[in-house]
């Protein structure tokens, strides 16, 4: 799946003074004037270099949390800080942040170039670096960069917004559903842009509905529900919290016996006449399939647990109902 497990913390000797985390959210609460509690005692730390995926259903408080991090919205209680500096509207530390929040927002009657130029000028006013030509190149818009923004398609608007977020080479990228409504190729480009910025040392917080996307690009994930944190941690840990594999084969009864004695397997449950669910640690698909083949069984289907399964399971846990075993195959 391309997800690498994070190295365990090198815990050697006297701990040096840790640098302030890129994002520190302490007991953050935001009550809206409508009386809705959008964010409810949220605690979250994002260390430098992490790519954190922020996931949760609509209305779970992801976007408003990002807006509080950007100083657009004031917390009702709690505090947020970026790189150790508390956030307030227009705070100096925001010069280290690039953002795409709530979709692209540009002056409609000006061209893409002019819009980016205005953003550059504002960044330079604050003493930051801003490479207009580089940003224009990165949009890939070609000659369309000189067309009015109001004539842009959905995809073009998001490209421009991503270029704006990356202006000034930010140390922290806050991206709110940056691939909304994009085709797979466009989403891929956004993931590459995120990965490039991260490999240059930036920290990234990206909210998304597309869990497969989080799994592809993020090192860490935080799951929110109704303004609260349901779970957070390295993506492999979140996926691996319920390491389950479903195997379709010709004879489930015999399969249970074969799999039950394989190393790493802690439990095998028959799920119908031709399916079993395997639970264990460090299960490698190739070992399971080889073992079954050696016993003369034919494997017809194999599906390891994805982040989506974990997400749903964690979600159900948080709601109070017991986690279900793997969902039926579609």
């Amino acid at each position, binding site marked *: 799946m391309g997800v690498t497990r994070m190295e365990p913390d090198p815990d050697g000797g006297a701990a040096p003074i840790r640098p302030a985390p890129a994002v520190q959210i302490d007991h953050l609460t935001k009550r*809206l004037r409508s009386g809705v509690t959008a964010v409810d005692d949220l605690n979250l730390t994002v260390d430098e270099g992490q790519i954190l995926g922020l996931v949760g259903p609509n209305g779970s408080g992801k976007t408003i949390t990002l807006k509080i991090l950007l100083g657009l919205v004031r917390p009702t209680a709690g505090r947020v800080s970026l790189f150790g500096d508390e956030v307030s509207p227009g705070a100096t530390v925001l010069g280290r942040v690039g953002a795409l929040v709530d979709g692209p927002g*540009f002056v409609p009657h000006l061209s893409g170039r002019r819009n980016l130029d205005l953003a550059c000028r504002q960044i330079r006013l604050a003493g930051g670096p801003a490479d207009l030509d580089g940003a224009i190149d990165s949009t890939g818009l070609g000659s369309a960069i000189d067309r009015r923004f109001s004539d842009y398609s959905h995809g073009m608007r998001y490209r421009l917004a991503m270029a704006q977020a990356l202006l000034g080479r930010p140390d922290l990228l806050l991206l709110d559903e940056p691939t909304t409504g994009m085709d797979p190729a466009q989403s891929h480009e956004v993931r590459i842009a995120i990965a490039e910025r991260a490999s240059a040392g930036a920290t990234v917080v990206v909210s998304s509905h597309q869990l497969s996307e989080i799994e592809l690009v993020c090192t860490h994930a935080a799951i929110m529900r109704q303004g609260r944190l349901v779970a957070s941690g390295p993506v492999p840990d979140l996926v691996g919290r319920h390491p389950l594999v479903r195997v379709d084969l010709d004879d489930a009864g015999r399969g249970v016996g074969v799999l039950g004695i394989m190393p790493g397997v802690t439990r095998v449950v028959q799920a119908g006449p031709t399916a079993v669910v395997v639970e264990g640690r460090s299960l490698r698909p190739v070992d399971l399939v080889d073992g079954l083949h050696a016993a003369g069984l034919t494997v017809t289907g194999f599906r390891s647990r994805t982040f989506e399964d974990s997400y749903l399971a964690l979600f159900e846990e948080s709601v109070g109902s017991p986690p279900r075993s793997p969902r039926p195959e579609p």
Partner: protein
Amino acid sequence: MIAIEWVKQFHRPKAYATLGIVASFSLVLTVALALTGSGQTEFVGDLPLQMVPRASGYSVPIIALSSTMKFFLPLAVALFAGESVAGEAGWGSLRYVMTRPVSRTRVLWSKAAVAGVLSLVSVMIITVVSLVVGAMAFGLHPLPIVDGRASAPDHVVSATISGGAMLGSLALSTLYVTAGMASIFAAAFFLSTTTRRPLVAVAGGVGLTIISRIFNGDYLPGVSVVNKYMPNNDIDLWQHLFLRPAATDGFVHFLLLQLVYFVVLMGLAQWWFTRKDLLH
């Protein structure tokens, strides 16, 4: 920040259109005067002064300012002020401006400065364009003025105002009308910080002039006390600059009133804008 705001506001079709319409008003007025004026001394609207419009191009800016100061100019000013913050909030670009290290106060006053300049320009366009067009149409002769308050039946010419005095009075009148827009500007600007719908803010600014006129003692004699503190009822006092002797009674009260409205409403705008949550 002001330069950035200027690019956003000035390069928009709506700004060109508004200024263009303001300018063409003077043109249309001159043509209308040239075509329909009888060459006789006439009442123009309900002015305290009467004149022979076609006798001199100087009459055109007086008539133009008089006929635009109560609705047309307030509308243009309310458009510039009302659009400035709410317009950008509606585009969605305001949140990106605000996620950069710049204080909200600075953003707000940059917007106020640009909207203020555009408002000032629209009042000046009325005077300058109508003076130029009027001069081309009727020449710049000394303008005979009839004091419409005292000598209405007799049509006695009370004064003939010549070049230098005329230009001075026109400049003062333009400044007076501009100052009279301050309350409307501030009302629309404050409302602009509270909404993403520019029309709401524009309507609020224009609404202030309408409320002001509803309480006008001319129509409701009983409300003269309230009337005294409505911002726009004395906006026509500048016309007395063209009477002889010129009168400046009520100028100080009017200008102070504008200042109070401006300071209070802009203060509210500042208070609200620096506290509000940019949820959208």
